[in-house]
């Protein structure tokens, strides 16, 4: 009894602890062959996505009217909860951040918050954002900017810092 249970025990230990349970050799080969094909189809679909993105942009947001607003946060010293955008008094975007999205922003990511169309000329952009500071205090802050839309696509980058006395709050950069 001891021998048989110990044999089973050793077999178990080697298979589970050291090597993990794997499919047989044939299945492994099939898995790898399929893996190659999956990689190829991913390349195809990525290429379609890129072409489709360009086509959509041309169709929906022609460069002479296109305006896009991007958002970034400079550091992780506060929790960004939401951002609202108004262009010429019209609300165009209202976004509430999940933890995962906030983390992505805090790690150097830039979010394209809004893409739309405006005619050439001067426009007002009103930005309102709210969040929570490190000390637990909640805040909401807003600022207004004027931007000039020309025939080229307009790319505006907003950097939203913690809205407290030592911070510049919202900074805008025309890209």
């Amino acid at each position, binding site marked *: 009894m*001891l021998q*048989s*249970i*110990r044999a*089973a*025990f050793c077999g*178990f*230990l080697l298979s*589970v*602890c*050291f*090597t*993990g*349970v*794997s*499919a*047989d050799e044939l*299945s*492994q080969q099939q*898995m*790898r062959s*399929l*893996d*190659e094909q*999956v*990689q190829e*189809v*991913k*390349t*195809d*679909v*990525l290429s*379609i*996505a*890129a072409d*489709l*993105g360009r*086509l*959509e942009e*041309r*169709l929906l947001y*022609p460069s*002479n009217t296109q305006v896009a607003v*991007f958002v970034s946060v*400079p*550091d992780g010293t506060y929790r960004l909860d939401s951002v609202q955008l108004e262009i010429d008094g019209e609300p165009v975007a209202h976004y509430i951040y999940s933890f995962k*999205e906030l*983390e*992505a*922003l805090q*790690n*150097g*990511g*830039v*979010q*394209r918050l809004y893409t739309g169309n405006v005619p*050439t000329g001067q426009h007002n952009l009103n930005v309102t954002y709210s969040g929570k500071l490190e000390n637990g205090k909640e805040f909401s802050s807003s600022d207004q900017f004027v931007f000039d839309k020309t025939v080229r696509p307009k790319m505006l*980058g907003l*950097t939203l810092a913690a809205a407290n006395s030592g911070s510049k709050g919202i900074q805008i*950069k025309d890209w």
Partner: protein
Amino acid sequence: MSRCALLIFAAASLAAAEPSQSQELTDLYFGEAKYFANQGLNFEALERLDIELAQHRAIDEPQLDSLYPYVDDAEFSVGDFELRYRMHHRAGRAIRAVLEGDVDEVVRNEAAYRLAKIHFQKGQYSEAMSALARINGEVPKAIRDDIEFLRANVYLAMGEPERAVDILGDLQSDDDLDGFIAYNLGIALLEAEQFEQAYRQLDAAGRIKAVSEAEKSIRDKSNLVLGTIMLETGRYAESRQYLDRVRLDGPFANQALLSAGWASMSAEQFDRATVPWGILAGRDSTDFAAQEAMLALPYAYSRLNVHGRAAENFGRALDEFGAEVGKLDASIESIREGKFLTALIREEIRQDKSWVIRLRSLPETPETYYLMELLASHDFQTGLQNYLDLEELRKKLVAWQRNFDAFDDMVAIREEHYEPLLPVVDSEFRGLDSRMKVRLEQHKLLEQRLQAMLTAPQPEFLATREEQQMLASIERIESQLREGYEANDSDLLERVARLKGRLIWDIHTDYYKRLDAFDSHLRELRAAIDVLETQYQQYVRVRQAASHSYQGYLEPVTRMRTRVRESLDKVNTLMARQGRLLEVVAIDELVARRQRLDQYMEKARYALANSYDRATQARLEGVAE
């Protein structure tokens, strides 16, 4: 692949690269790609960065592009995203392109390191070593230790543990890799047959100060391996000592409890064996080690001559195994009905990283109860991830197909709106355009006249219309008088000359004042013409945009539609094949587990009968005495 190589691979995988931590706002599109990558949305990240890099490569003056300062980082990131999206071929190509491009030494060395890592992960060890051999000169400080760690792992995988020992021995000061290095050094020493040193090293790795879960796991693993070796070499007391260090709530707890029981049994400390096995037998009944403990525990009681309790526990084990066989049969049936694949692609389950664990705990997915070990195996994981990736691709392609219909509608609506309007607008525009051209020509002539007057004054050009009419009248009278001249006309001629002189005097004396006014008016006119030209250009662009909003889409949309349809066909075919393979492998695994349980049940039945006999015999002996 050797046992040791697999251990190292696991350790190396734990130390895989984390998402980018850069917090500087760089190029917007590169930042957008990072935003997606940081959320694990690798497809979207690749899509954005592919477009951005393609645009950057296509421009004539790349140094003016906002991506220019970060282009090396972006090229690397593409490789990283591709790796995370399990596109090793493309990742390898991307990194090789950096390696062979005109880049500085630091960048080239980092590319070589990344390429080596890809080869290592794919089990191409000599290629990994060749890539590492390309590293020379200045190496980024952040990856110096990683390079040596990888080199040691490659040597180990290639069966050259002595070289790995040399490298790992020098690396022990690195903080991030501390636990992994200590553990791998222990394994390398084992492989190099330097056993006592290996035991000391694994002992040290098993006592290392750990903070993160990964470090705690590698510490547990060191203790488990060392405890197991001690058990196999008959050093039972030491074995228990190491196995007891393994955390009871860690991933290696069950194996450690099982081994600890056997260490005690082997040392004939039967009562001590019942402690870890007693804990283990009460744990998850689908676990391999727990099932074994259900048999081992009554066996220990029988060795303690507690046959009644042994019989009771063998009976319980039989009941448990019977129930588990029922679960396994249900699981096999469920997989055959396709429910396993359906469960895998459930959106709400895959919202967090531990979705595989959560899947197992759902009562409605019995097919996954026994597949944890299988789910953890590399090939199955790859197949599973590919299946999930294919499902994501399928969803995207289906959504794009729907978008094409919307595109068609949009284009048709625009065409319907603009087609009747544009001919009228064009006709009006042509009239305005010709009038505008006449005015522009006039403006040009006036400009030329002004320039001429600046070099050679011509006061008569600036005479007012009234002055010009008066002058013309005077000259006509003067001419008439001269034609019919009589002596008494001399007074008249004198008066005419006086009038003409006065007029010319005014024109000449006011000349500079008039020239200033002319220049000023011309400037005003130029400003008005600038506005006109801007409006003209705007109109031309808007007119073009109107045409472009519906013309020229038919062909690209049709082409894209075909490509999407073809890709969707491919994805569907691959998904079916991949899914079928996963099902077959999963069923094979479950059948093997069922067969093992059948064997356990057979042993349990025999042992149960034996224990009853002994218990009865003991009772009879007690009565006889």
